[in-house]
């Protein structure tokens, strides 16, 4: 729901672009007079692969996103609207090569960015695992709503407890001592992974002023060319200096030895 709502609301004068699976919403419009393409993966009960009907990133979604990115209008920047509960878990998906579908999306995003197209992401719901890796993480600028419904992680919470054979309480306790395992916006922002966080009273019904603030932030970021930054540049942020110090140190020592 959140993905479709924000894909609809964010751009001015937006119209749907056709030719994509129904689970991939693609809309072309403007912000402050400049062209944008918004892309969201949304639930679709009629999706032909049953394991990808609840908004998961499945076979069709990966190539749908890849195509939407690759074939975006030449002057458009891309806004990836992120609300993905994870990738599709299925036998057919693995046999057919779901990892290739995700890689196609990643390749399209990286390729466009390296050719100079600006990429922005707005996390409006769940940003989980391979789905987020394939849709959102390659953007030069990433914003998120400041809301309890936002979740950034590599696995759904219930699965973490099952995999690690621990209780929900234990998983929650670890998240307080190892921030990398937390799921909330504020903790993810600590790593320098987010460029902006937006207050929204109701993410399902954003007010005009709230949408305007997001637009203004994206417009500023675009004018500053932030949408072409590579993921590694996030390590330069003050937050990363403080909370990804180990990654920075490892990189420094690799350089020393190289």
């Amino acid at each position, binding site marked *: 729901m959140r993905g479709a709502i924000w894909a609809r609301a964010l751009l001015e004068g937006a119209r749907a672009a056709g030719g994509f699976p129904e689970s991939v919403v693609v809309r072309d419009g403007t912000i402050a007079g400049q062209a944008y393409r918004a892309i969201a993966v949304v639930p679709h009960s009629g999706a*032909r692969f*049953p*394991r990808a009907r609840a908004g998961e990133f499945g*076979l069709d979604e*990966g*190539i749908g996103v*890849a*195509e939407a990115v*690759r074939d975006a209008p030449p002057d458009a920047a891309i806004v990836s609207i992120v609300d993905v509960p994870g*990738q599709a*878990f*299925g*036998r*057919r*998906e*693995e*046999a*057919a*090569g779901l*990892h*290739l*579908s*995700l*890689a196609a999306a*990643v390749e399209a995003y*990286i390729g466009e960015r*390296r050719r100079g197209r600006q990429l922005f992401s707005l996390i409006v719901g769940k940003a989980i*695992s*391979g789905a987020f*890796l*394939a849709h959102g*993480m*390659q953007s030069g600028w990433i914003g998120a709503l400041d809301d309890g419904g936002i979740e*950034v*992680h*590599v*696995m759904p919470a219930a*699965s*973490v407890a*099952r*995999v690690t054979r621990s209780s929900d309480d234990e998983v929650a306790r*670890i998240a307080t001592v*190892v921030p*990398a*395992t937390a799921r909330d916006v504020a903790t*993810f922002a600590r790593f320098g*992974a987010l460029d902006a966080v937006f207050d929204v009273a109701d993410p399902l019904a954003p007010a005009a002023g709230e949408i305007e603030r997001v637009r203004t932030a994206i417009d500023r970021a675009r004018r500053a060319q932030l949408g072409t930054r*590579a*993921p*590694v540049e996030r390590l330069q942020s003050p937050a990363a200096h403080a909370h*990804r110090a*180990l*990654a920075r140190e*490892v*990189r420094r*020592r*690799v*350089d020393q*030895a*190289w």
Partner: protein
Amino acid sequence: MTPTALRRSYVESTPRERIAALADPGSFREILDPFARCSSPYLAEQGVVAQRDDGVVVGRALLGGRDVAAVAVDGRFLGGSIGEIGGAKIARVLERARDGAFLLLDTGGIRLQEANLGLLAIAEICDAIVALRERAPVVAVVAGRVGCYGGMSVAAALCSQIIMSPVGRFGLNGPEVVEQEAGIEELDARDRPAIWQATGGVRRVEQGHADVLVEDDLDELARALRDAFRASPNRERLSLERLRNRFAQEAPR
């Protein structure tokens, strides 16, 4: 006639032995080796004993005279998972590499115990692979017991060439994860023959997901690796047209 040399198994070798056997003899120089004492500070709290190389071996080597980055993920440590340190090691050597890189991937993907730090690192690794492959070969080898899964399967799919052995498996979600998330009626993780048939090296090469199939033999792999460096990059693997056709065949009727 010389007697037939004993096969040296890739599966039975350690990550360092693998790199040493595949690179030009004596050329591998490890960076941040176990004596550098660079181990994860996040594991003790979660009841896991850290490893002094964080389960990732990286360095600089020669391959057929080329100055390349070498990476080997240790599948024996936490399923070959990628955390903050291992991820940063891989990303940085890929960024520094001059004439290409080879990655020996025996990995379940992102390390659950360092979740979002692993995720951030893999996004950097994907970008570094695409940047490097524009000017030099980046070759992945998937021939270990763990296989190549999760975020690292996405990274591997971006490589110029992929070499597999029949032992290797290549997919996004491991069978245990699929069974757990979707139920045993979707997939029975104990049905090993079915799993290898669908996602093992033989099948993946047949499907064109990987490029070369070799036996579990280090000498054969060393030759295949040099050939892969000379081969032109596979640009068909992620062709949307091709993927679309393949997925259509897989769709339930």
